[in-house]
């Protein structure tokens, strides 16, 4: 294993320590339990946004803490969901009393740990809602399974909801907005190489010199299908068409019901994209793929969107939700409306995303 690390056990802590000194103007880091939070919390009257997940996806989520985005992020070990005490302590620090929205990627571990965290925070008298992101079209059936994973749309939801919280959306409005972003966003990813979690010390899976994994998540887990290497245009077409031609997708997700004071299953349906839709196009590096290649993907994606009558009105290109040093990319398309565009354009000031200020 070749990495710029010291001992694998110290990876997350040392990385967080570096982040804390590097961005002391924007964020602070609390250790044991670990969480990153805005320097200016609690922000009076603002709903606090918290997200979290395994480490190894940087800049997600810690890089998105700051004005106009998250109030706190809870990093687990590499590829391992964080634990409820992290979210609980973070909530205590960032809560202004206006409520907490947890943005949670739909992985069993993340979901269960955030549910436990919400139960703990509720029992301490906080108002908390969890919204799940499940946008990965590589996962096809949901009826009897965990359903789709949360991937690229998470970044967009954090930005958009962050802006809305800043503008005074109250907790339920914000939860509704987050759900909207989720059902309007779809993603799919592909890996050219595997990655090596430091504690494991070896590759997650072996890929031949001419093989790729189609439909991967962000934890170095193998994808749906292994196939021969293809050209960037062909790969883009496979990803983009899987997203654009994805049919209406129905699933039930568990959310906290504030009236009933219990977890309830609600049915949520994504409607397919259609001609004339305005979209945000997000081409994401899995970590080891350079920017030059992302632009080659973006070029073809723009052509496909044009052919399909989708109008790209905003874009994001770069490594934002990664799998350590994995080579590969993911595409996310998010259907926008005027409200979402306004919120996307709103100022943001975080270590990894910054504009307008």
């Amino acid at each position, binding site marked *: 294993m070749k990495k710029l690390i010291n001992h694998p056990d110290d990876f997350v802590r040392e990385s967080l320590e570096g982040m804390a000194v590097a961005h002391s103007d924007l964020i602070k880091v609390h250790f044991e339990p670990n969480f990153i939070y805005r320097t200016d919390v609690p922000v009076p009257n603002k709903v606090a946004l918290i997200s979290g997940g395994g480490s190894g996806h940087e800049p997600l989520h810690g890089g998105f803490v700051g004005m106009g985005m998250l109030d706190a992020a809870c990093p687990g070990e590499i*590829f391992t969901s964080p*634990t409820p005490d992290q979210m609980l302590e973070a909530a205590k620090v960032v809560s202004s009393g206006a409520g907490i929205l947890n943005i949670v990627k739909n992985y069993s571990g993340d979901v269960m740990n955030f549910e436990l965290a919400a139960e703990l925070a509720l029992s301490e008298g906080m108002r908390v809602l969890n919204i799940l992101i499940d946008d990965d079209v590589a996962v096809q059936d949901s009826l009897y399974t965990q359903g789709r994973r949360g991937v690229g749309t998470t970044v967009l939801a954090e930005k958009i909801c962050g802006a809305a919280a800043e503008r005074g959306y109250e907790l339920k409005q914000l939860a509704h907005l987050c759900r909207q972003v989720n059902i309007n966003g779809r993603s799919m990813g592909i890996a050219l190489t595997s990655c090596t979690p430091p504690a494991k010390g070896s590759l*997650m*899976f072996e890929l031949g010199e001419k093989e790729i994994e189609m439909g991967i998540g962000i934890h170095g887990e193998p994808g*749906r299908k292994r196939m021969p290497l293809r050209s960037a245009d062909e790969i883009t077409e496979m990803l983009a068409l899987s997203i654009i031609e994805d049919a209406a997708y129905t699933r039930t997700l568990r959310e906290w019901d504030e009236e009933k004071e219990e977890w309830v299953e609600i049915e949520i349906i994504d409607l397919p994209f259609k001609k004339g839709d305005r979209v945000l196009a997000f081409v994401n590096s899995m970590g080891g793929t350079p920017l030059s290649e992302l632009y080659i993907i973006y070029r073809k994606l723009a052509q496909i969107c044009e052919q399909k009558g989708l109008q790209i009105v905003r874009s994001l290109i770069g490594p934002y939700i990664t799998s350590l040093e994995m080579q590969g990319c993911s595409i996310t398309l998010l259907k926008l409306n005027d409200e979402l565009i306004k919120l996307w354009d709103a100022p943001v000031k975080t270590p990894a995303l910054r504009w307008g200020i």
Partner: protein
Amino acid sequence: MSITKKQIVQWLQAIASVIEQNKDYLTELDAAIGDADHGINLHRGFQKVLTQLPKVEDKDIGSILKTVSMTLISNVGGASGPLYGTFFLRVSTEATGKEELTDTELAHLLQAGVTGVVQRGKANLGDKTMLDALSPAVDAFAEAITQGSTIVEALSKSVQAAEIGMKETIALVAKKGRASYLGERSAGHQDPGATSSYLIVQALWETLN
């Protein structure tokens, strides 16, 4: 027949050591159909349990197991953290104030644990999860106790059932957890969580044997 507080503590220590021995094995199983951290996660959690035990081993069984639950919840992470955490939480609730447990109490309390796992994880039998080893193991134990077996005899049945359940996960297509994203490709691999559940049951049997 009954099981003492000291044996409970020994069981927990035995779990920590069997997980340590199987850390890489569990992680390799998880690499095949998950994200290669199951052994690492559980090892981190049970090592922490070991450091907590001396502080609580004089308290009642309920308190000890509550500490185990909280330690696992705050240190394991992933899917297995809240699941095993919930398992021990439910077990602990039923053991509040006890210094030892009768065989029937032990059976009830393990069943409560399994119910907790189901409620938390929403998995069904056959979904290729820890439940496929844990649930038959607990059922076999309870049944044997009902039929008058000793704890050790019942545990031996329980270990057998866990092992069968664990091995049956090989053929299954995962419906819950990370492995479910693999679809058909998850078949042919043994579930890491079922494997750790088997090891936990086995540790109990070895402790009392």
